[in-house]
């Protein structure tokens, strides 16, 4: 009952794109956009310990709240490309180490303008030595001493190394802009589409329309974010007219309510990637042939059907299907037992027996492990599935296990590479450590030409496709539901992107 919905892994999070708001989902009766009303959205939350410090966001509910009150310089579009928000645009020096970012004309809720000094102070707060903020890793590329405010509305960032994808850091999870000197967030002041009204931790968060929002005032008069960690209770609240929007539902629930037409089900695509992570530094996966055999063992269609209950699609052993820079030209891999057996024979690993570590830290992890164990039997591989502790799983798999269940929320492909696949990555769960791969990544970050950079990303993805330790077998939808009278929910935005949980574009019919 207390499944905390973590945002994807690290940096990732939200973004824009695809604006135009595909009005509502299926049978929405919301009608054309119209102003007024209070929308009540119910999310899983963090209980009595919840705070409104936007730099401390970890859970979906926290991001939804922060997003209502604050802005970032950039946010992720539906293809995970960074979209300017408070930043009007960005331009870099030829060496990609100095970035000039002009700011939009925007004001905080108390009337003060958003200035370059506020941006630098916000980042300095995240980067403090004693800070354990999630955005710290992504922003630490900034050389704060060398960065400066050119004038009130222009920031110049100096970076510690060339970083072509610097706008990803501006869009990173939790990199919100707060007024300079803000430390107390009991009555938060931001520049976002809604103004703070009241907050009861673990219960209710109420905000009101900000008529002066730089992107235009929201349609809703008020937004209330409610908390319930029990999925059945979230659906019941929606059915019982205690809420208008329910976040994070299972495919089973979605199916049973979809046909009834009482509520609208929204399946946000490309939201959650599912994988098996093989550690390439230990037996049996230190043998390339064994990894490749496993790539050919998996029946991805069946896993999508059974584990994701059809609410998603197959992936091709690579992270970031259909995101910016994704290599879509590689042929889709399918189950090929003959090839798998042949590879195992070559590795002298017939009748292989492996322990697969999984847990219930996130829905589907355990089910996928069990289904895969069944599939592997067909090639004579015995998989012993062991269940780890769900509250500490993500930390345990850092060192434990030779193959483990894995999943990831949406993030740019660049973030996925830098956070998980470089020798210096802090959460490198496949132990993929190759100097030549690191060099390719650094080369990409020093390349200002976007096409050339795309080519380097393609090269890295091809290496991972052939030799890597991640077996990304599917990508699932993120399921939310709304009352029929709610309009303006973007059905194309993956969870954690700009247009996800974007209540300033939503209306009540």
């Amino acid at each position: 009952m207390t499944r905390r919905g973590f945002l994807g892994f690290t940096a990732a999070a939200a973004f824009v794109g695809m604006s135009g708001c595909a009005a509502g989902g299926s049978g929405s009766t919301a009608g054309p956009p119209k102003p007024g009303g209070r929308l009540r959205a119910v999310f899983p939350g963090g209980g009595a310990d919840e705070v409104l410090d936007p730099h401390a966001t970890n859970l979906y509910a926290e991001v939804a709240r922060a997003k209502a009150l604050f802005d970032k310089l950039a946010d992720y579009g539906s293809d995970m490309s960074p979209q300017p928000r408070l930043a009007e645009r960005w331009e870099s020096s030829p060496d990609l180490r100095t970035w000039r970012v002009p700011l939009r004309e925007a004001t905080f809720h108390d009337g003060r303008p958003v200035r370059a000094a506020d941006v630098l102070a916000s980042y300095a707060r995240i980067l403090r030595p004693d800070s354990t903020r999630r955005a710290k890793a992504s922003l630490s590329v900034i050389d704060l001493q060398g960065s400066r405010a050119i004038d009130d509305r222009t920031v110049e960032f100096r970076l510690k190394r060339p970083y072509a994808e610097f706008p990803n850091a501006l869009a990173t999870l939790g990199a919100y802009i707060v007024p300079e000197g803000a430390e107390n967030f009991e009555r938060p002041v931001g520049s976002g589409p809604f103004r703070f009204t009241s907050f009861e931790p673990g219960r209710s968060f109420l905000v009101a329309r900000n008529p002066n929002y730089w992107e235009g005032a929201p349609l809703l008069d008020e937004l209330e974010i409610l908390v319930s960690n029990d999925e059945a209770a979230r659906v019941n609240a929606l059915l019982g007219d205690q809420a208008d929007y329910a976040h994070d539902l299972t495919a089973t629930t979605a199916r049973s309510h979809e046909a009834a037409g009482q509520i609208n089900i929204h399946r946000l695509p490309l939201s959650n990637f599912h994988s098996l992570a093989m550690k390439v530094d230990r037996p049996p996966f230190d043998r390339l042939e064994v990894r490749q055999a496993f790539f050919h063992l998996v029946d991805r269609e069946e896993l999508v059907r059974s584990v994701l209950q059809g609410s998603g699609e197959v992936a091709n052993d690579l992270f970031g299907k259909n995101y910016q820079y994704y290599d879509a030209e590689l042929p889709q891999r399918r189950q090929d037992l003959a090839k798998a057996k042949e590879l195992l024979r070559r590795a002298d690993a017939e009748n292989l027996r492996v322990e697969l570590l999984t847990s219930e830290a996130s829905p589907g992890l355990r089910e996928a492990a069990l289904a895969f164990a069944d599939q592997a039997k067909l090639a004579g591989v015995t998989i012993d599935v062991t269940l780890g502790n769900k509250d500490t799983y993500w930390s345990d798999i850092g060192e434990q296990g030779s193959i483990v269940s894995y999943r990831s929320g949406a993030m740019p492909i660049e973030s996925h590479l830098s956070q998980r696949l470089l020798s210096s990555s802090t959460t490198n769960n496949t132990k993929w450590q190759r100097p030549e791969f690191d060099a390719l990544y650094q080369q990409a970050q020093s390349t200002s030409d976007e096409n050339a950079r795309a080519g380097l990303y393609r090269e890295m993805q091809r290496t991972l496709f052939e030799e890597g330790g991640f077996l990304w077998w599917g990508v699932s939808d993120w399921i939310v539901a709304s009352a029929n009278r709610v309009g303006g929910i973007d059905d194309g935005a993956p969870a954690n992107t700009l247009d996800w949980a974007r209540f300033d574009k939503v209306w009540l019919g």
Partner: protein
Amino acid sequence: MSIPGYIARRVLLGFVQVFLVMVVVFFLTEALPGDAAVTIAGDDPDPAVIALLREQLGLNAPVWERLGGWMLAASQGDFGRSLVGPRSVLDIIGSSVGPTLLLAALTLALIVPVSLGLGVLAANREGRLTDRLITSTTLGLYSVPEFAMGILLVTVFAVQLGWLPPTAVGGGGLLSRPAVLVLPVLVLLLRPICSLSRLVRAGMIDALRSGYVRQARRAGLAPLRVQFAHALPNAVVPAMQQLARTTDWLIGGVIVVEAIFVVPGLGTTLIDAVSARDLPVVQGLSLVLAVVTVLVNLVADIVARILAPAAEDDR
């Protein structure tokens, strides 16, 4: 033994019980895999961040040092601060104790008259249709666990019929929207009413057959007076002690009911604190629950002894 002596002995025992609970809870939470640093880091477990968190949270100190420090502070009324958020444990308990107390108080206030009434009624109609109806219904309802009962009631009365709100989701006090309390209190009531009314019925039947009731009747006392002044006090002794057990159970039942109906009380807070490995909050809550349990049982035993001193001396 004199009653004051008995009370003194029981109070002392209560202190020992609370002390033991504190130690056991501390080591149980200690034995859980992972700590607050790991759960705060969540799905982004950068080892450097976890190490920094451990240092900031004081999790690196030896077990004995932390246990001793906590017990010393707790005995002075300082429960420490949450590891996960910036609030103090007392503040967190204070803000979530209201809904739990409200649920428990409402339930207790209704349990006593309803189960006494049902029990006395059934005893007076022993063997007749009313008795059989009450007996079979209470037996049937008693066998349904709270969570199943809760889901059933929500499905029928909230989602399908739409008569009552399905959850207590939302801001503001529960008292400002009393409709949300109906189903949770009903779920909490059903089982204890069943067990208590059956105990009252059994005690009442015994009492009505006893010599002193026959004597009172022969003396020509009014039937109601015989029932309520002579039979009932002896009949309720076992029910009284059961009521104390029920109060312990209520605390547990409230946790389940709070989860089903999204009531932000002690139960919800405890579940959240355990899954976040928020040790000070888990310990503080356990201490409060232990003290409540010990106190309730103390009062029940003392009342039982005053009502029927002989029963206690027989032990």
